[in-house]
């Protein structure tokens, strides 16, 4: 059992099931991201942990205590909202002090804690300002300080950076992560930005249409997507339809060219056509050396992205995107020319169907 457990949690609105059978066990101090497209149920799940929504079924436990039906103000959970949600009529210091004030902590303790929190989020001098006098990034730091001031057992963040511009987003991302490590606070972070999830999390929960598609480290989720959905949502991934020739040895045929999936295609039957995943960065625009899969195709598109040149090679029904580094000495191949590509045998992965309910 973890520190924060969700067991068989589901949420139904009328005839609409928006979260189905959600199971997750989060360790103390772990940073977990919920990643998925709009409407997949990330916020709803987070709000059930916060207590704003009551699950239609299932149990939520924090540190062994069943909190499923507790009110938000009885859970000692911290939350940071996308829209900051600072109280406009209170100064920065009063905002940070709010949780301590309603808990009737002594004045000097509140003052000390507020100063400490403002120092932690690097806004020690702005205590007397009102929220409207702060930039978006500053407001979100204050919101973070406010949530952490009451020493919550779990910190929940719902797309906290998506209203900010790119530069601040990246610096604040790193700050939140290092603060989280420093305080060793169990954290659930909702985002639809895969880069954010990949760069910050200990583990990622990839969600789609109310269900968990995969739970894994960023490395696992990115390199070994479990389902077609994960493969297409996380990173840019080539998905190829392959006809299975021999499940045991991993031999498959793509557009008439036989290749080998080094990890096997167990679970697929002979003659079946199944989706397989192949990362752009795993493909090179030459034959390569040793035991590699090699395929012949036609250059269909060349996109010069700066340091990287992205090339689409078509085999027949299937095409792949591949990335090569820009080389000032060598012009990219012209469109329409024939090309050989190669990729490691282990890089070609069989995708599972999405889990049923």
């Amino acid at each position, binding site marked *: 059992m973890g520190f924060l457990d969700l067991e068989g949690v589901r949420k139904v609105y009328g005839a609409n099931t928006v979260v189905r059978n959600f199971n997750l066990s989060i360790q103390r101090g772990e940073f977990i991201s919920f990643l998925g497209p709009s409407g997949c149920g990330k916020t709803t799940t987070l709000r059930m942990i*916060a*207590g*704003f929504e009551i699950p239609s079924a299932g149990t939520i436990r924090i540190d062994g205590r069943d909190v499923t039906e507790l*009110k*938000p*103000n009885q*859970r*000692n*959970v*911290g*939350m940071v*909202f996308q*829209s900051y*949600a*600072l*109280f*406009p*009529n*209170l*100064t920065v210091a009063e905002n940070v002090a*709010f*949780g301590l*004030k*309603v*808990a009737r902590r002594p004045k000097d303790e509140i003052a000390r804690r507020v100063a400490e929190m403002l120092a932690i989020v*690097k*806004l020690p*001098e*702005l205590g007397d300002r*009102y*929220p*409207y*006098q*702060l*930039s978006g*990034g*500053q407001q979100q730091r204050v*919101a973070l300080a*406010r*949530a952490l001031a*009451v020493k919550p057992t779990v910190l929940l963040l719902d797309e906290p950076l998506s209203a900010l511009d790119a530069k601040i987003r990246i610096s604040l991302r790193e700050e939140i992560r290092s603060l989280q490590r420093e305080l060793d606070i169990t954290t659930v972070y909702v985002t639809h930005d895969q880069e954010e999830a990949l760069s910050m999390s200990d583990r990622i929960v990839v969600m789609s249409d109310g269900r968990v598609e995969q739970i894994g480290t960023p490395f696992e989720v990115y390199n070994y997507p479990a389902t077609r959905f994960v493969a297409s949502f996380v990173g840019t991934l080539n998905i190829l339809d392959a006809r299975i020739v021999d499940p045991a040895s991993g031999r498959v045929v793509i557009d008439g060219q036989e290749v080998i999936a080094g990890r096997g295609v167990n679970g697929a039957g002979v003659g079946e056509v199944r989706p397989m995943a192949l990362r752009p960065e795993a493909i090179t625009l030459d034959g390569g050396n040793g035991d590699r899969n090699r395929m012949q195709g036609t250059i269909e598109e060349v996109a010069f992205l700066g340091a990287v040149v992205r090339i689409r090679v078509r085999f027949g029904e299937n095409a792949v995107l591949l990335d090569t580094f820009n080389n000032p000495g060598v012009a990219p191949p012209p469109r329409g020319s024939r090309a050989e590509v190669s990729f490691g045998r282990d890089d070609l992965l069989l995708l599972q169907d999405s889990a049923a309910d």
Partner: protein
Amino acid sequence: MSREAELAVVAPVARSGGRRSWAWLGITPFFLFTVLFLILPTLDLVVGAFQTPDGSFTLDNIARLNQPTIVSAYWISIQVSVASALLGALAGFVIAYAVVLGKLPRPLRPFVTTFSGVASQFAGIPLAFAFLATLGPTGLVTALLDQYAGINLRALGFNLLSFWGLTITYLYFQIPLMVLILMPALDGLRKEWREAAAILGATPWQYWRHVAFPVLWPSLLGATILLFANAFGAVATAYALTGSSLNIVPILLYAQIRGDVLHDPHLGYALALGMILITGLANVGYIWLRQRGERWIK
């Protein structure tokens, strides 16, 4: 970081300073209208209050305000206005709260909005007769209550042509007006504030005390003052309802300017000046209170 914020706060002000805009042209009709129908008549009235009928300067009109009938008229007017404003504000707040934040069925809202829009404008002679016809001495409700419920309003001390009668009649448009003003204000309370407060451990009461009420305060106050002014200036309803049986300023004023026996327009001007001053004072009080309650807005 803090430097950035300062720039962000200062920048829009600096920018809008030097620009000439065609937008001025658009609001010219408004200014013209204001000057012609508000500023000029007010000036005329102020000047008239200090003139004798032949046009020379005098303080006599003002001095004549200090007679028992007029002083008590002001006093009753203020009382009726305050009572109907406060009661209207309270009831309006409860209704607006129920409609916006309560868990009532959705279709109720447009219904309440439409009804309030109509009712808040339903004043003057039609309103007075509507009330006479229902709650008046021979009104329908009065009769029904008497006949079937055995409640004799008159015996209970209720008289529509009295202070409370007028107050209740005013409430008919005061409450809907408050509802109309407060619904958007309550909409402005963001759901996230309530949730942020809750997750920080606050009870609903603590949230209202520390966040929602302070945020609403300027709107509540402004709306109540508006209600006060609304009642204070309402002459037609009062006149049609009570005739001269209730001594309030608008009726007294009306009597001076409409040209019968009492005809004394310059005393009328002075009466009106007094009303303008009282309304103005209420507004000054409002601005003062509002600034105290609103330091967090620019």
